């Protein structure tokens, strides 16, 4: 749990920088060498390497085995972990709120929603009884 929390710290720190997010977006399209990653930026290669180190430490990217190019690769698992919580949180609340939508609808239109079945049965029984009485 503590380890997880520290991992998340590193992940959120790594994601907090626009250059690093741009690097991740680039790597999402495929592996790339440091030179290729540096190309679209006005930054020096050492500056890019510093960003890559932070991303690597956060477990968001890894370096390939090819000793010459050392292509960087995105590690989806850690990024998915970081985004999964907000998505789960949202999904849980959305499920709650959809039940609340139905409840609010029912409170406003007592005869038109899920109570309808019950009430209709009662009413039609009552109607049937009245008709019989006639």
């Amino acid at each position: 749990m503590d380890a997880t929390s520290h991992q998340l710290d590193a992940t959120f720190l790594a994601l907090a920088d626009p250059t690093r997010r741009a690097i991740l977006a680039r790597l999402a399209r495929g592996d790339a060498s440091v030179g290729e990653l540096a190309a679209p930026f006005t930054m020096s290669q050492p500056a890019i390497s510093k960003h890559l180190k932070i991303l690597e430490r956060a477990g968001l990217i890894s370096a390939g085995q090819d000793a010459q190019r050392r292509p960087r690769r995105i590690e989806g698992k850690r990024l998915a972990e970081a985004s999964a919580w907000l998505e789960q949180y949202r999904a849980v609340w959305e499920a709650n709120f959809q039940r609340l939508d139905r409840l609010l609808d029912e409170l406003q239109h007592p005869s038109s929603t899920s109570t309808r079945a019950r009430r209709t049965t009662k009413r039609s029984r009552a109607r049937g009884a009245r008709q019989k009485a006639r």
Partner: protein
Amino acid sequence: MNMPMTIDKAQVTQPSEREVKVVRSFRAPRALVYRAFTEPALVRRWMLGPPGWSMPACDMDVRVGGRYRWSWRNDTDGSEFGFSGAFREVQPPSRIVHTEAYEPGTVGGGYPGQDAIVTTTFTEDAGVTTMETTIDFGSKEARDAAVATGMTSGMEQSYQLLDRLITELSA
């Protein structure tokens, strides 16, 4: 009558490194939405959490200084967790502020330090009520721990989420 009941799905954002914010609109007058958030008999009909969970405890004394306790139980394995706290501001039908402490029960996890502060506001426009709730965990550490707790209780890592995040990042 055939209008869809859901207007927009819940938006969840992190307005600062200490906070999480949830925004949702409902097709109902504000007074009614406020009741659905503050009357226990109504609350326990919708605040049930993920599928397969029930809400055995929903006690709420909604007045300044009054306390509340909510608990949830997994119907399959019997595991439980809850939240409890006290109401700090109660302004029907527009605003509620309460403290929130996580009760790990048998689920575990949680966040260190002081209770979170939860501020909920309701505004109405043309018959649509918008609820905004902001949870202030007090520190980045506490929020991240809450994040970790949320993760361990769910833990299914979906690579579709990654696709979506990447789309956001590259937009």
